[in-house]
């Protein structure tokens, strides 16, 4: 493996908690590695499993999905619905043979800037251990 390889990680953050949490990490000047690309979504329940698969197919090495803590959803139950989708998708991908840890999930509230940077650190460490994604990736578009 190329020693200079850095993972590309896509983070789907919910507008109301995790995105604000990431914002807080920024305004609080908390440092974390620049490997993540953030996509803001209205709610963690908005995330279509196709988003995650499409990201992996397009050359993203890892995906992080983050939303409000249970009970805190702006739309009351979006994160609960998202949680069921996440649980089944995660198990299914691992069953197919995509390594555990490629797709990760977290709850980060708007007040948890520190936790956000910590989660990002952990995800990046995990993906670095796994190396570049070789499965499902499309070589030529």
């Amino acid at each position, binding site marked *: 493996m190329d020693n200079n390889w850095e993972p590309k990680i896509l983070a789907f953050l919910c507008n109301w908690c995790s995105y604000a949490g990431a914002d807080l990490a920024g305004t609080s000047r908390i440092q974390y590695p620049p490997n993540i690309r953030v996509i803001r979504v209205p709610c963690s329940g908005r995330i279509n499993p196709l988003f995650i698969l*499409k990201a992996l197919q397009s050359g993203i090495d890892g995906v992080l999905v983050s939303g409000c803590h249970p*009970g805190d959803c702006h739309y009351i139950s979006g994160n609960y619905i998202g949680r069921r989708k996440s649980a*089944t998708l*995660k198990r*299914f991908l691992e069953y197919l043979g995509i390594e555990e840890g490629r797709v990760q999930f977290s709850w980060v509230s708007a007040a948890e800037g520190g936790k956000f940077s910590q989660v990002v650190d952990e995800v990046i460490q995990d993906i670095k251990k796994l190396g570049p994604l070789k499965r499902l990736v499309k070589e030529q578009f």
Partner: protein
Amino acid sequence: MIQQKIREKAKELLSKKTVDLIIGFSEWTLPLRTTPIFIRTPEGAESLTWNSFCENNLATYIHKFSRFKIGIVVKGCDARSITALALEKRFKPGQLFLIGVPCQRMVDRRKVKRAVKGEILQAREEGDLIHVKGDGFEVSLKREDFLYSSCEACTHRTPINTDVLLGDPVEESPLAESHAEAKAFEKMSPEERWRFFEKETSRCIRCYACREVCPMCYCTECFVDSSRPKWMEKSLDPSDLQFYHIVRAYHQTGRCTGCGACERACPMDIRLTYLTQKLNRDVRELYGFETGVDAEIPPPLSTFDPEDQQEFIK
């Protein structure tokens, strides 16, 4: 004879105009196969048939007749698909009349073909035996040795929520013994599983037969056909084939009854039921849900429980 009972019931329903249309099975030109048939007149009921080759899931066809009152011949799996479709409001209440037939489990024509040399020209079922005749050979095979793997795994052979049940309910295999295929795959290493998945999907020619034959695949525009957003290319790139099969299977989460129609329809013999079986296994384990058994419990992915397990979330 069950076949006679089906014909009589169909005739009665059509002549009393309880239904406009009967969907059932009929003999056709190919041996070891039947064809779905759509009957509108009482006389037509004579062509209905029932044997070990009635493999299609007839629930697929109800989407095409939204203005008709339909009488439909259902096995255990068809009936569960219809219950699952009822939960998704795919037909009007009272639109369907289910003629339930306890399923004796269907015979895998591919297994039979592999067991004989040469082309099969005639096949006839008699009790527990299938008499197969072809160019220069004539053999009798034991029905039980040639069942579909999905039928062997079936735990709901007697159709449920039917309007009429023809024949006696059969004894079901215990739930604990189901999902054997998925359990075996779970024991393999991720590398082995991925290699297997890669190998299987690489044969795919993207005919979409697995999608067309599935009663739960009724989206007006499938994600593979959509161009805005364009989820995937229409190529035979291995990655696209894998993508298609992952999403096709995953979309069945909590909706698949494990009828195995997708695998039977596949012209390239791709193993597909091991994917959906895993999803069924997961929703049963995580949410205690069994597809198509109860018409009151909503599908697992459209609902939630605040206490759902979440130790995988940071």
